[in-house]
């Protein structure tokens, strides 16, 4: 089976004077399941279409197994793409749809028959060969689109928002199937999504894009625990972001002045840090919440506040707490019989300085 690597070197693309991709550098390993994650307009779909050959970058190199394929037209790239709307041809049967690429390759009738049958069996649609795409459900259409693409044994498999057209339950099921299929085939797979949960649960590694700029690349845990900037911290998972100034750094720790809140004494940073503007990121579940009269430990920093709103989500409750002029989110695990804090109730928030992440970008 094909296992190709992909490398983007200094890729830039603009429509007219609007830059869409800016100096993208990215290396995807053979056999990897890789996600391009970003909000709409971030350039993730453009990047995917560029790899498929439907967009042309103005600068940079696009290498598959070390060879630059920049000028190669889409039909000669041997890169399979599954479209967001599946793009099944309504005038052909399922069988003809899947056989399309093999017919283009002038393969023998017998070879086509065997491969199409195998591909349809692989996605569990062996009995649907004679149907038309319009007679299939959304999930089945997606499988046909997958079969149609993998049957040509592409070097890379590209998936454009593969799950966005499915309803929630089907999405979770398809997610599992996609993952298994990718493991079975070992195909280097790149998929585009705006859904961080989808990316985190499915991909080996992912790249976060915003405004055409590659923000960070890494595994789900790396991005979640060690975001490199404000955008990644906010986009991958939920985060409290506190803007402020690093006022002093010494051997024992550093002083961080949060706007409209006050100074916090934090442990020394892992990497050398200069004074200046920075952002403090902390996850809601890292903020503990107690009643004002409860005992507090010295390990944490404690802030007094007032509950603004409470959302009961089952596994946990999410509080929005006003501290001075700021609002912080705090997630508390829920246990039966434990009452929730009511809106308006005075509370204390505890922050573990070791869990904080100071962002300078």
């Amino acid at each position: 089976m094909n296992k190709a690597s992909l490398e983007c070197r200094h890729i830039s693309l603009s429509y007219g004077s609007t830059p869409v991709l800016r100096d993208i550098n990215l290396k995807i390993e053979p056999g990897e399941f890789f996600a391009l994650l970003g909000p709409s307009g971030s350039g993730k779909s453009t990047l995917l279409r560029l790899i498929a050959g439907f967009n042309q970058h103005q600068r940079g190199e696009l290498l598959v197994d070390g060879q630059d394929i920049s000028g190669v037209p889409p039909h000669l790239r041997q890169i399979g793409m599954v479209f967001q709307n599946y793009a099944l041809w309504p005038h052909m049967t399922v069988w003809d749809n899947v056989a399309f690429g093999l017919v283009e390759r002038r393969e023998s009738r017998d070879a086509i028959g065997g491969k199409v049958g195998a591909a349809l069996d692989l996605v569990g649609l062996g009995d649907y060969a004679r149907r038309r795409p319009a007679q299939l459900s959304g999930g089945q259409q997606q499988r046909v689109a997958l079969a149609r693409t993998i049957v040509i044994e592409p070097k890379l498999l590209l998936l454009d928002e593969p799950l966005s057209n499915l309803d929630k339950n089907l999405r979770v099921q398809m997610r599992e199937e996609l993952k298994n299929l990718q493991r079975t085939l070992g195909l280097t797979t790149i998929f585009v999504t705006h859904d961080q949960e989808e990316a985190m649960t499915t991909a080996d590694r992912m790249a976060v894009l915003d405004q055409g700029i590659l923000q960070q690349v890494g595994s789900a845990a790396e991005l979640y625990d060690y975001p490199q900037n404000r955008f990644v911290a906010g986009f991958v998972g939920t985060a409290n972001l506190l803007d402020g100034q690093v006022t002093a750094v010494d051997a024992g720790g550093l002083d961080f002045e949060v706007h409209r809140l006050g100074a916090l004494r934090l442990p020394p940073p892992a990497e050398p840090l200069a004074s200046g503007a920075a952002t403090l990121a902390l996850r809601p579940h890292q903020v503990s919440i107690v009643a004002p009269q409860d005992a507090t430990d010295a390990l944490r920093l404690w802030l007094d506040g007032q509950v603004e709103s409470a959302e009961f989500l089952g596994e946990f409750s999410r509080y929005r707490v006003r501290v001075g002029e700021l609002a912080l989110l705090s997630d508390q695990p829920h246990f039966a019989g434990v009452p929730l804090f009511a809106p308006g109730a005075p509370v204390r928030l505890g922050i573990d300085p070791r869990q904080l992440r100071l962002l300078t970008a």
Partner: protein
Amino acid sequence: MTASTVSPGSPASPGTPRALAGPRIGLGAWLAFGLILAFLLLFLIVPVGTVIYTAFVNETGSLTVGHFANFFGQLVFRESFFNSLGVALASTLFASIIAVPLAYLTVRFEFRGAVLIQTLGVLPLIMPPFVGAVALQLIFGRSGSVNLLLDDWLGFTIPIMDGLVGVTFVESIHYFPFILLNLVAAMRNIDGAMEESALNLGARGWRLFRRVIFPLAMPGYLAGAALVFVKVFDDLGTPLVMGVTNMLAPQAYLRITSVGVDDPLGYVISVIMIGFSILALWLAARVMKGRDYATLQKGGGALQKRRLSAWESVLAYGWIALVLAVTLAPHVGILLMSFAQVWSFSVLPDAYTLAHYATVFGDASGMIGNTLLYCVLAAGLDVVLGTAIAYLILRTRLPARQWLDWLASAALAIPGLVLAIGYLRLFKGVHVPFTDKLVIHSWVLIMLAYAVRRLPYALRSCMAALQQVHVSLEEAAQSLGASRLSSIRRVVVPLMAGGILAGFVTSFITAAVELSATLLLVSTESQAPMSLGIYLYMQSIAGRGPGAALGVLAVVVVGLGTYFSHRFVERSRVTTSTSTKAGA
């Protein structure tokens, strides 16, 4: 700054502008572009340019406006000019008066008459106007059925078929469907919420129609009205058949055929006709600019339909019955005429016969064959060109691709008469390559004139069809290894098939009844198609029977064609709806 809590999961939307299918422009695209451009230049732009040029030069070849001064200096031409303008404006007005209530009725009310109106919309179009004119003469003419009855019973007659009034009457009846169809389409696209919010804010009844619904449907109305104006202004067959010669098109025809192809006044008239056609289309486009309100939202409903009250029903059905009776008159008339042995000064024919059909099949089978030959080739050429232009415009980034659209659509503003004059002038004395036959004596030129004149319709049809085919369907083919050409052949064209066929049929049936270019370009009797045959037969009283029989055949052909083109469009809608559903 407050601590921001960013939660991801914004709804999916194609944020970046979708790039068109291919990253680079292939050699094939340039080649197709060049060929189409060459065709349009040779058979549309240069001939029409020649006509315009000729109108502005004198014998010595220097530029002059003297011909125009000469034109407006002569009473007969001034009169012709104002007659044409008046008839065109009046016809547009009367066509609107017929069409607007009908359109409103179909869209707003729930009643069985809607089907009748649908039929009304097509019936007049399937009969060539100059055939209708002859038939209407028999029914509404000075000694036609209606006036004979009126005279008998009430002692007076209505001279509705005389002179300019007659031309206006025939043209209004023939062309009102253009307004009806466009207006209905526009009103169907209005979101019901537009009306509901107006109702909610207190607008009702006539004010609601005047302030909200009609303005929203205005683009459709204007498109239809401009088309009616242009068609009437340029029409040659109807005035000729009715014996009205003091209008522009007949004057141009008479100058060119009697004085000769070098007479400058024929060219001056041509330029005036082109000028007014362009002006009308330009005005409509200008008024509509930026107002193409397709307000129907996703998931939104169309305008609410309500039931008619008893009184309203009487009015509505009365109006429909009246229009239907008048619209059907030419069809009934022509049918009776084709079976009539003698029909003169009587309400109905005195005796019936099948002899006219025998005559037609005996004498005129060549004409039927010619019509099929010219029109199949012309319509075929149109859809090939239409598909190619649509593809170049919608799916490539050729720098000047929009020109092709403009050039091809310019044919809308060129009367058949003018195009024919241009051909005669441009190809005068030119021989068909490798033969000693003159180009202007070849039937191919007739076919090309048909093709050029019908190209805008075929092009619209092909563009609409291609717009229905989502780009990803083609990109999927390419990513699976199909070259550009292969993906067009295996995916794009099959999915466009319905629209292409509809375009073919529209071109075919309208070419089959084209008279103005035919009159000038047919050089020998053996080249004559049905439309010319009908015209020639109708010239003599004795020929009216066979002429009518040929007319009935033409109506049947055109009617069947229209029916099938509707079927094709419906079917293609069914197939493509599956692909758009997936694209939602």
